[in-house]
């Protein structure tokens, strides 16, 4: 099975051909982003005189810098909150066999099924009444709650497979519950925390519907909404739009390439739950 046979070579060629087909849109994305708008040759012909002017213009006119900072802030703060409250909640939910514990767990798991479209409109009204429309704090609050069910589900599944011995020993040694959690349980949760961190970061960063609702009409934007606004503004100026798309993709892909192993394992890690 590990020998490199003729069949393996054939498979290698087929797979590389498939990868070329998959990568074709990315080629066009870069090719058009570095092309002057006056160049009207075929989109698949390599650009003859590449320019970076589109990037400079997209950056200045799209407000992408501010959107990038907002996206970073919203993602970092809300993911930190979600990981903290969910791991904390998972501890009694995984350990206690009392009725309230099972009931609470099932109630939170209900959130896995409820589509956010159902809560989005009544919550829109609440956010408006609180005067938080157009503020990125409405998003932080929203994601901090929305991501609780999935994250708690991951943590509870992982904790149930862990032995209780260490935390019981810590309690007998006189540790309070918070100290036992912080110094005994939390370190053991590291693998699932990486998974939860990756999955939450990607879904919060990429979300479009929520900021579309809660930030529309304000000058506060996240990256996905800024890109959509940019497309609306420069309708058919595709060279400029492609430069903006590429700018929004670069930070994500840079992090992905840097942490590819943890990220891919994070996505595959939900499997163990």
């Amino acid at each position: 099975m590990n020998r490199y046979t003729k069949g393996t070579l054939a498979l290698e060629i087929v797979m590389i051909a498939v990868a070329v087909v998959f990568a074709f849109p990315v080629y066009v994305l870069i090719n058009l982003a570095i092309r002057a708008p006056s160049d009207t040759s075929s989109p698949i012909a390599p650009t003859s005189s590449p320019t970076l002017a589109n990037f400079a213009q997209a950056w200045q006119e799209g407000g992408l810098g501010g959107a990038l900072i907002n996206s970073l802030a919203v993602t970092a703060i809300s993911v930190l909150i979600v990981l903290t409250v969910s791991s904390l909640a998972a501890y009694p939910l995984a350990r206690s066999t009392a009725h309230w514990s099972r009931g609470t767990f099932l109630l939170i798991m209900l959130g896995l099924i409820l589509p956010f479209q159902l809560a989005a409109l009544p919550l829109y009204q609440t956010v408006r009444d609180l005067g938080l429309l157009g503020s990125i704090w409405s998003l932080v609050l929203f994601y901090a709650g929305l991501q609780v069910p999935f994250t708690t589900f991951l943590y509870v599944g992982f904790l149930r497979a862990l032995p209780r011995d260490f935390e019981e020993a810590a309690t007998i040694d006189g540790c309070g519950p918070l100290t036992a959690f912080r110094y005994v349980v939390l370190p053991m949760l590291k693998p699932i925390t990486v998974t939860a961190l990756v999955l939450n970061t990607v879904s919060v960063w990429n979300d479009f519907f929520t900021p579309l609702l809660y930030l529309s009409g304000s000058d506060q934007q996240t990256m996905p909404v800024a890109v959509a606004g940019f497309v609306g503004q420069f309708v058919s100026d595709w060279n400029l739009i492609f430069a903006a798309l590429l700018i929004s993709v670069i930070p994500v892909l840079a992090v992905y390439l840097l942490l590819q192993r943890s990220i891919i394992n994070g996505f595959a890690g939900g499997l163990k739950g």
Partner: protein
Amino acid sequence: MTRTRTAPWWFALPALTLFAFVVLIPSARGVYYAFTDWDGLDPAFTLIGLDNFTAITDDPDALQAVWHTLLIAVAITVIQNGIGLLLALGVNSAIKSRNFLRVLLFAPAVVTPIVTAYLWRNLLGPDGAVNSLLALFCIAGKNWLGDPDLALWMIVLVVVWQFAGYSMVIFVAGLQSVPKEIYEAAAIDGSGPVRRFWSIVRPLLAPAITINLMLSIIGGIKLFDQVYALTGGGPGHATDTISTLIYKDAFTLGEFGYSIALAVVLTIIVAIASAGQYTVLSRNERAAS
């Protein structure tokens, strides 16, 4: 005795409060509003019973959107997982480029869906790269997103392009649980690759299949970003889904009650799909183990 003391109940309070405030209470209010004529602004609204729901069943656009939602979800599930499995078998082999290919094919899955959708809107346009490519092979181009018969399938194509690598990664994790010894022993005993896949690999893949089907069918039912960016539900209503109608009815037409009744319909569909899948797949998983 020590058990209750190690993990006190109040640890669950912060998560429960956030969850209740953001998901549980608004969802419950949503279900209530579905039976009212609430317009999103006026605090004075009245209960109107099932009127919003009968309006949905009387609205050909809404019924069509329900059909589109189901069609898109099923098409994405079948095609994305089929391709994802083939890719997984391809990269889980002795080929030299396997690690590179895994990283490359998964990459679209981390990119913002609204961004990939805008990219494809241009690629599939009348003067786009797809038609230019077809012209090289002397194939006449089409208006992929402007043709009501094709547009829905283009949405499926874009989602599959982006997330086939995601399915692949989960299948690869499943494939790695298949013991090589058993696989090789079967090969020595003379079973062909198809037979080996069906009898040895497939049962061990059951957990990966469960996760993949669950993710793609629920993701497909809720799909919004790609439809919004690629077609906006058009041409006409040819690609409207429940999610795009919810958005349009609430935020461009101000019909919040009707919109939220649609969200209730969406919730019911998601619940039925989850429950159905859970029953069928857990039975299969038990049978396989």
